[in-house]
C-alpha cells in the first residue's frame, strides 16, 4: 500500500514534467518520422522500419534512466528524502516505489513507438507484441541504472551523465542508424560487450519472430540488468542506512 502510494507520486511527477514527455515520447517518435522520410528518398536498407523501430524504441527507453535519476537526485537535494526517512517507509518501499512506475511507462513508450511505425507502414503481425515485451528487461536495465546514478550523483551531474552521456552511448553503440560492423575493430567489440546493441537486436529478433535468434541477446541484456538492479538496490539501502 505504501509502495503504491510512493509509486503513484513518482508517476505523477514524471508525467507532469513536459520535458520528460517530450524526450521520452515525442523525440523518439520524431526521429522515427524523420528517418522514415529520409528512407523514402534514399533507400538505405538500414532505415527499414523492421530494423529502425526496435532501435528507436531502445533509444527512447534510455531516457528512463534520466527520469529516475533526476527525480531521486532531486529528492535528495531538496531534503524530500530526509522528510520521508522520518516516516515508516522502508528501503524496499523506496526502491520499488522509484522503480515500478517506470516499467509500465517503458512498455507504453515502446507500444507508442511500434504504433507509430505501424502507421508509417510497418507490417502489423503478432510479433509486434513480442517486440514490445522485449522492452521489459531493457526498461529494467535503464531504470536500475537511473536508481544507481540518482543515488550517487547530484541532480546536475545526473543531467550530464544520464541526459547527455548515456543517451549518446545508446545512440552510437546500439547499432540503430548504422551497422557497427561498418566501423568494426574496437568499436564493434565495445558495442558487443555493452548491453545497448543486444537490447536492439533482441527487439529485432522478436519482431522477425526469430525465436532462436533472440535468446543470446536476452542473456546479454539480463547479464547487465540483474547486477545493475541488485547493485542499485544495495547502494540505495546502504546510503539510507548510513544516512548521517
Amino acid at each position: 500500500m505504501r509502495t503504491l502510494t510512493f509509486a503513484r507520486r513518482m508517476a505523477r511527477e514524471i508525467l507532469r514534467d513536459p520535458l520528460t514527455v517530450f524526450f521520452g515520447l515525442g523525440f523518439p517518435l520524431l526521429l522515427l518520422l524523420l528517418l522514415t522520410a529520409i528512407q523514402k528518398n534514399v533507400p538505405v536498407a538500414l532505415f527499414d522500419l523492421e530494423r529502425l523501430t526496435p532501435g528507436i524504441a531502445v533509444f527512447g527507453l534510455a531516457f528512463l534512466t534520466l527520469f529516475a535519476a533526476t527525480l531521486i537526485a532531486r529528492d535528495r537535494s531538496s531534503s524530500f528524502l530526509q522528510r520521508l526517512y522520518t516516516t515508516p517507509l522502508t528501503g524496499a518501499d523506496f526502491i520499488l516505489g522509484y522503480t515500478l512506475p517506470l516499467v509500465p511507462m517503458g512498455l507504453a513508450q515502446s507500444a507508442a513507438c511500434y504504433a507509430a511505425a505501424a502507421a508509417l507502414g510497418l507490417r502489423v503481425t503478432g510479433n509486434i507484441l513480442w517486440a514490445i515485451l522485449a522492452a521489459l528487461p531493457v526498461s529494467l536495465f535503464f531504470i536500475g541504472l537511473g536508481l544507481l546514478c540518482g543515488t550517487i550523483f547530484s541532480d546536475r551531474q545526473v543531467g550530464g551523465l544520464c541526459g547527455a552521456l548515456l543517451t549518446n552511448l545508446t545512440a552510437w553503440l546500439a547499432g540503430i542508424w548504422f551497422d557497427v560492423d561498418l566501423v568494426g575493430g574496437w568499436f564493434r567489440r565495445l558495442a558487443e560487450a555493452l548491453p545497448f546493441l543486444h537490447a536492439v537486436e533482441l527487439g529485432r529478433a522478436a519482431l522477425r519472430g526469430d525465436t532462436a535468434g533472440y535468446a543470446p541477446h536476452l542473456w546479454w541484456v539480463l547479464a547487465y540488468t540483474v547486477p545493475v538492479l541488485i547493485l542499485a538496490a544495495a547502494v540505495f539501502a546502504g546510503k539510507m542506512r548510513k544516512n548521517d
Partner: protein
Amino acid sequence: MDGIAAMGLTKRYGDLTAVDALTLTIDAGERFALLGVNGAGKTTTMRMLACLARPTAGDALVDGKSVVREPGAVKARIGLSPQETAVAANLTAEENLLFMAGAHGMGKADARARTGELTEALGLGPILRRRAGKLSGGWQRRLSIAMALISRPKVLFLDEPTLGLDVLARAALWEVIRSLEGVTTVLTTHYMEEAEALADRVGIMAAGRLLCADAPAQLKARTEADRFEDAFLAVVREAGLG
C-alpha cells in the same frame, strides 16, 4: 513524561564535534527554540532527535522512546519540516498532504479528513490545487509544516520554519505555530524576535555545545540586557565563542 530528554547526545564527523554531549529536557507540550550562529549544531541536534542521524554517543528519549534503540517508535511519534522546504514540486499542495498521509500508512478516509483539518487550520484553501513547486516561499513553508503535522505527531521539529519569509507570512506562520496546542515543538531560527515571541524557553548553542536553556525573560534578566538580541550576544561572548 518529558516531551524530549537528551542525555549526553553527541555527534562527531571525523575530527569535528558537531554536537557535544547535549543534555536537555523539554516538557511535553512545550515550545522550545534552538538558537545559535551558523554551524552551531542546531540542525544536527534535530536530525539526531528525528532519527535521521545516529548519535556517536549518548541517547535521547522522544515522547519516552529512545532514538537509538527504538527509532521506529520515535518515527511514529514525530513530524519534521526540514531546513529546505522539501515538498514534491510537481504535485499539488493537496496531493503532497495526501501523499505524506499515505507514506505514514493512513487510510484514505483518515487521510482526507486530516488533510481537511490542516487545510482549515493552516489556511491552505487558496493554494490546495496549485503545484507545490510553483508556490511562493511562504506558502511552501506553510505546506511543509502541514506535511509534518499530517500524522498527528506528539513532537514536531521545525528547522528554520520562517527562513526568507516576509513580515506578513512570518506573522501568519507564528499564529499557526502558536495554535498547535499540546504538541511538543522544537524549532530553530536565526531571528531573535521569533524565538522570543514563540518559545517558552530558548536554548543557545555554539560550537556544538548547549550554553544555556531558559525562558527569554530570564535570559534577559540574567544578562542584564534590554533586548533579547543583546542577551543572546552576551551568552555567546561569555562562552568565549562570539
